[in-house]
């Protein structure tokens, strides 16, 4: 197609006029202070599986809130953008804030994405609620508009290490003095921070860490690492992996016949259904530190228990019988708290009011579907009432085993039986 000079001028003028007019057009549509929230998640690319899990949680919370009358008397609205990796985080966050003019940004599951995107929000003085990215440094930058619902990675890794020392070692008949632990983690913000947290606790307890290794989650082969462990023969493997590398590692471990007495994961792969599907019965017995939506609702407040039942029922109905993952639960919790508690308290979409409402929020432990409460630390703005729970795969389902008031099962099958012999756990 050839374009004459006149046609070109017309098109260019038209496009220019549209571009210049668009901020006013959009501003007009945003009038009336409806709750319009930006959602920033990896919905394609290697992290997409869990990113979509979080989105399901966000959407379910939005659905419940709108069914119950919405926010400020009208339906709340989400503007969702796909951020496959940290490279796109800055531009997409900028688009949400300057072009879509959202009043709040909710993100983003992956620490590297959260890191970049929250910076844009801070610069534009828009409140950013992080639901599931754990790297400690995200909230150590002194940002005033960034709140985090989940515990930081150091608490996750440290918690997993403490859980190993307190609950796993007695069951495999070993003590901190004689156990050999290997640490393996993927090398992005998430894995590295979890690894550091675990290393600190283990070192303080005087545990012999026989190996401490990181790798890229985009790898296509982990058999050399498996061979390291075949040689080193650790008793406990403490790992932090995303889903693809987690599946690859444990399948290759099975193929190489790597036997350990206990496996402790740190979220990521180790509490999602895809992981269990890939390993079959051999997933049974694997322990995990993280968050769970398979907890005892008797440990929750009556209102949270009711939401818990509604969440599970509606999730199955809306998403074709799919089981919710921990990430869906955490996404739901964050969106639910923002839409139900923080925004109504703020009374509008001004960043300052939202910030004050978030700071004032004070909900006790057991008031959410994942067992947490909400109280943001005035300094770091981390949620001080979030904590990891500990789970074990039993009968191919994840079961919370600790803390005791949220546990639905006891730890079984320790030391871990060999591959192919875990059907009974």
């Amino acid at each position, binding site marked *: 197609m050839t374009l004459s000079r006149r046609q070109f001028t017309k098109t260019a003028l038209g496009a220019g006029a549209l571009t210049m007019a668009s901020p006013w057009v959009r501003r007009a549509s945003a009038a009336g202070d409806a709750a319009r929230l930006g959602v920033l998640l990896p919905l394609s690319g290697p992290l997409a599986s869990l990113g979509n899990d979080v989105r399901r949680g966000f959407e379910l919370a939005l659905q419940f809130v709108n069914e119950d009358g919405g926010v400020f008397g009208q339906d709340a609205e989400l503007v969702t953008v796909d951020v496959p990796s940290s490279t796109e985080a800055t531009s997409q966050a900028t688009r949400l804030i300057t072009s879509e003019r959202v009043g709040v940004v909710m993100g983003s599951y992956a620490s590297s994405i959260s890191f970049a995107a929250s910076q844009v929000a801070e610069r534009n003085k828009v409140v950013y609620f992080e639901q599931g990215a754990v790297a400690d440094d995200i909230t150590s930058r002194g940002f005033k508009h960034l709140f985090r619902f989940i515990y930081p990675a150091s608490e996750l890794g440290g918690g997993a290490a403490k859980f190993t020392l307190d609950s796993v070692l007695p069951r495999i008949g070993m003590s901190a003095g004689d156990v050999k632990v290997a640490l393996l983690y993927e090398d992005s913000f998430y894995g590295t921070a979890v690894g550091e947290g675990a290393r600190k606790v283990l070192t303080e307890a005087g545990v012999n860490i026989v190996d401490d290794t990181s790798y890229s989650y985009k790898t296509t*082969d982990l058999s050399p690492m498996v061979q390291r462990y075949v040689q080193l023969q650790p008793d406990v493997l403490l790992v932090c992996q995303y889903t693809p590398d987690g599946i690859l590692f444990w399948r290759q471990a099975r*193929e190489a016949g790597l036997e350990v007495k206990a496996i402790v994961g740190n979220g990521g792969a180790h509490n999602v259904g895809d992981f269990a599907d890939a390993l079959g019965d051999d997933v049974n017995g694997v322990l995990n530190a993280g968050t769970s939506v398979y907890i005892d609702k008797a440990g929750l407040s009556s209102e949270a228990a009711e939401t818990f039942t509604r969440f599970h029922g509606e999730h199955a109905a809306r998403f074709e019988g799919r089981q919710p993952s921990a990430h869906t639960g955490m996404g739901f919790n964050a969106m639910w708290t923002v839409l139900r508690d923080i925004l109504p308290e703020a009374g509008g979409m001004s960043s300052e009011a939202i910030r004050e409402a978030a700071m004032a929020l004070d909900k006790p432990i057991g008031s959410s579907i994942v067992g947490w409460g909400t109280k943001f630390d005035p300094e770091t703005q981390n949620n001080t009432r979030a904590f990891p729970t500990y789970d074990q795969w039993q009968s191919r389902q994840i079961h919370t085993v600790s803390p005791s008031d949220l546990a639905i099962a006891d730890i079984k099958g320790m030391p871990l039986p060999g591959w192919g012999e875990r059907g009974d756990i």
Partner: protein
Amino acid sequence: MQLALQLLLSGILLGGVYALAALGLNLIFGVAKIVNFAHGEFMMLGMYAGFWLMTLTGINPYWGSPLIAVAFFVVGAAFYWGVMRFTIYSTELTQVFATLGMSIALQNLALVMFSADYRTIQTMPDGRSSIDFGFVHLSSDRVIAFLFAIAIFVGVILFLRRTFTGRAIEAVSQDLMAARLMGINTQKIFLITFGLGIGITGVAGAVLVPSFYAFPSVGTFFVLIAFVVVVLGGLGSVTGTMIGGLSLGLIESYVGYFSPDLKEATHFILLILLLAVRPQGILGVKGAEKESLK
């Protein structure tokens, strides 16, 4: 000793898989001089084909591979006829945009059709996932994928050397103008080459899915490796692809054992070293990278 042997065998098996993953890319490059940036995505589709075949019909991808090969031959030929035919005499930039565009389109199509979940299948019953020689363990699925790689490489070499069409493909790859003057229908040869290249890539994906997993952007994990293998072995050389694959597999196996965090970096270090020392690759012909159809 036992460890060295284990690492050697694991490296060889991995290398075979890498070579298989790269063969289609090199074949298309060698003949049509087009770098197919959508290569990884065709492999991803091959993985899904293997997954769905097993999930929906119960036929495992090993037995189903002839079916997948035929289906992907058609896909490859259609890709040539529908898209690449128009770019074959264009600049390299046009070809890059065409294949890169295809790559993005296919990734998003897979995302819409199959969702972002990680899909994998188990072809071996529990307890049979590895072959245990006492002193070394080998993954059953990797061994089978390796055997596929050997069979496909031998098949391709025989096809190129012994059949009329194969020789015509070689002729086009060596000198397009001379081949044309000899009466070879080059459009038909390009069509067949794309079909063959994508067909092999589809089978590579399908036989890999039992030991790996499929998701929409899995191709990006393999495409870089395929590029390294092709450059390492030699642009346009089939035997070179096998040697390149095996070399990379072995290097990864040993580096991965002694220094896991450097494993991914070795791809790039190797690539840079090779481009500096021997740009044509191990078995490549000097100048092949500069040849063009014009």
